[in-house]
């Protein structure tokens, strides 16, 4: 696991405050995002995780002003202190792709099949720079080269369907980076790719982030990747933040039963295949269907310990012990009990691997946490190996 790069003094380049997104549909109002906050500083990576439908993509689209017209967006989106939700269409256009850029899940459908990849990268540049086509093409070729497309000058003339999945995603990343954006939002950039290619693309994202000092918002289902590259993590559940904090906070000191469930659901290389994936029983509620109480309550194994409050009172984000901004939205305030519970129910089956770091972090907490920490550490090492492939 890389050393945390976070230096708390850094001012965020992108700040989102109390973001609400409601869709007006024929079936009524659908609150897809219900009040989330996050921030990311230059060179930092914020990972957003959560099950399908938890509002990850909607949140990132809201930042870019890319939601369809039936979406009501409330809240603040500040880019270098500038309120993006109040911009005119033309002002917003100048921000998109220039200061904030997007990398999509499926690079094949994200690229236009009718134009060469070089043209598409050059177009992104020309939309924000007053340069000749020739200069833009040269810039596009340089970017394609930078993201690792072999013989970029020739390949620039090829069309998206003539590339492999991984190469296409590199093209999309080149297109997103061509204007040297301050913030890069990658929405599940590796889901559509082979495992080995996934590792390469994540490596590429890390490399370009280091090179350009880009703030990265990484939406991912892959907790192994998150543990490897993120500085901060936002765990979303049913349009709200269940828990957020530094990557260590989430992986070693998870305070929300949902986060623990996700960590339990994380595939591990060191566990025999039949035990590999513990999924959280049940499925997330449709957004807005739970009006009072905790949205996770129907699936929560800890609700009996708290009792009525889980049903009657919505848990708000409250500070938890950790590296600073660790917060969780759960009534169950006493972290050690959870850890004990985890140990007892046997969600984690493995003792700490030898030489697992974190002893000291675990030592700060109560003893049973050691298991939890070790468990979280387990998958990190294999994925670090994978990325070296």
């Amino acid at each position, binding site marked *: 696991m890389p050393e945390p790069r976070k230096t708390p003094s850094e001012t965020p380049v992108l700040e989102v405050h109390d973001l609400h997104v409601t869709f007006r549909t024929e079936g009524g109002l659908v609150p897809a995002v219900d009040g989330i906050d996050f921030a990311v500083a230059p060179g930092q990576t914020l990972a957003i995780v959560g099950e399908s439908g938890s509002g990850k993509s909607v949140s990132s689209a809201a930042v*870019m002003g*890319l939601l369809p017209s039936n979406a009501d967006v409330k809240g603040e989106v500040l880019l270098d202190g500038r309120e993006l939700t109040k911009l005119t*269409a*033309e002002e917003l*256009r*100048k*921000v*998109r*792709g*220039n200061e904030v*850029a*997007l990398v*999509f899940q*499926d690079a094949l*459908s*994200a*690229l*236009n*099949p*009718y*134009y*060469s990849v070089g043209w598409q990268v050059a*177009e*992104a540049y020309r*939309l*924000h720079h007053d340069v000749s086509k020739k200069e833009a093409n040269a810039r596009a070729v340089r970017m394609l080269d930078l993201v690792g497309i072999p013989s970029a000058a020739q390949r620039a003339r090829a*069309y998206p*369907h003539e590339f492999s999945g991984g190469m296409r995603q590199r093209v*999309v990343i080149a*297109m997103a980076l061509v204007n040297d954006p301050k913030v890069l939002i990658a929405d599940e950039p590796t889901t559509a790719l082979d495992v080995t290619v996934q590792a390469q693309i994540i490596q590429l994202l890390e490399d370009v982030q280091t090179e350009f000092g880009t703030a990265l918002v990484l939406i991912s289902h892959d907790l192994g990747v998150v543990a490897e590259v993120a500085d901060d993590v936002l765990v979303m559940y049913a349009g709200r933040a269940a828990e957020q904090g530094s990557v260590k906070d989430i992986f070693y000191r998870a305070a929300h039963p949902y986060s623990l469930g996700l960590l339990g659901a994380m595939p591990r290389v060191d566990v025999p295949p039949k035990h590999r994936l513990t999924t959280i029983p049940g499925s997330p509620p449709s957004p807005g269907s739970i009006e009072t109480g905790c949205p996770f309550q129907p699936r929560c194994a800890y609700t009996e310990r708290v009792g009525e409050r889980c049903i009657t009172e919505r848990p708000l984000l409250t500070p938890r012990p950790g590296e600073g901004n660790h917060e969780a939205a759960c009534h169950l305030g006493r972290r050690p009990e959870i850890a004990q519970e985890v140990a007892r129910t046997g969600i984690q089956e493995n003792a700490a691997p030898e030489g697992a770091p974190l002893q000291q972090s675990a030592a700060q907490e109560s003893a049973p946490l050691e298991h939890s920490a070790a468990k979280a550490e387990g998958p990190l090492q294999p994925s670090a190996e994978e990325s070296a492939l």
Partner: protein
Amino acid sequence: MPDLVWFVIRRLLATVLVMLALSLAVYLIFYALPADPARLGCGKPCTPDRLEQARHFMQLDQSTMQQYLQFLKGIVAGRTFGEGAAAVQCNAPCFGYSFPLARPVTTLILSRLPITASIAIGAAVLWLIAGVSLGLGAALRRGRLFDRFAVGFALVGVASPSFLVGLLAILVFGFWLNMVPVNGYVPLTDSPVDWAWHLVLPWVVLAALNAASYIRLTRAQMLEELNLDHITTARAKGAGEGRVVLLHGLRGVLVPIVTIFGLDLGGLLGGAILTEKVFSMQGLGELLISSVGQLDVAVVVGVTLFSAFLVILANLVVDVLHGVLDPRVGHA
């Protein structure tokens, strides 16, 4: 692009074969009809002798297969009907000879083609522009008043019989409002202004009716296209709405539009029968209809084959354009 060249060559060879098969079929069908073209050409009173003479002159006394081979030979080398001073010469490429009109079919087709082409191309350009822009506007204003109007117009257009609309247009704009001429054709080379002026009504009528399917196609395809991920990419890159819609959206709709446009135009160039009839234009369609009435089988065969050829050609052009417009389509 050598691939494309080979593709065109292969397709042209295939076209020749298809045309051969088609011409044989058409020949057999029309010459198997009980009508006897010689009877029309034998004058009055038509004695059996003179009928036999006429048959011989028109080379109708040979077997059907022989006649067909004569027909093919005529295309390559020309034909001569009769002998001596009365002989009629039909130069290559000879697609038959019309005895009632006393002209080679090739000459007839070539003299009528400019009229039909003027009608067809002018109307096609109009309906392409009108249909695509209305369909585009409808897609962008989906569910709103403009969309309802365009969709309604498309429905009416598809359902309306062209001759009725044509007659109505003549009545209103020609006779009542006296705005435009109601019939007649002035060659482009004589006076471009008069040419266009005489064609305004048929153009508008044909365009109004054909635009309907283009409105529906453009609207439906555009709605689909605008939902695709790469449209979101274009917006995320910072492309303005105009660029998103035209360069990224409409670009993807080009292939289906070009396809039906090519096929529609190819079909119409072979004769806009009803329109020519309604507006009294002496085009290919009118030639075909009057020849059927005259039992002028040579002309019927010639025009039918020519129309078929245009349709096949349109298909070829459309296929070539597919490869040019869609990089995913190969011609290998």
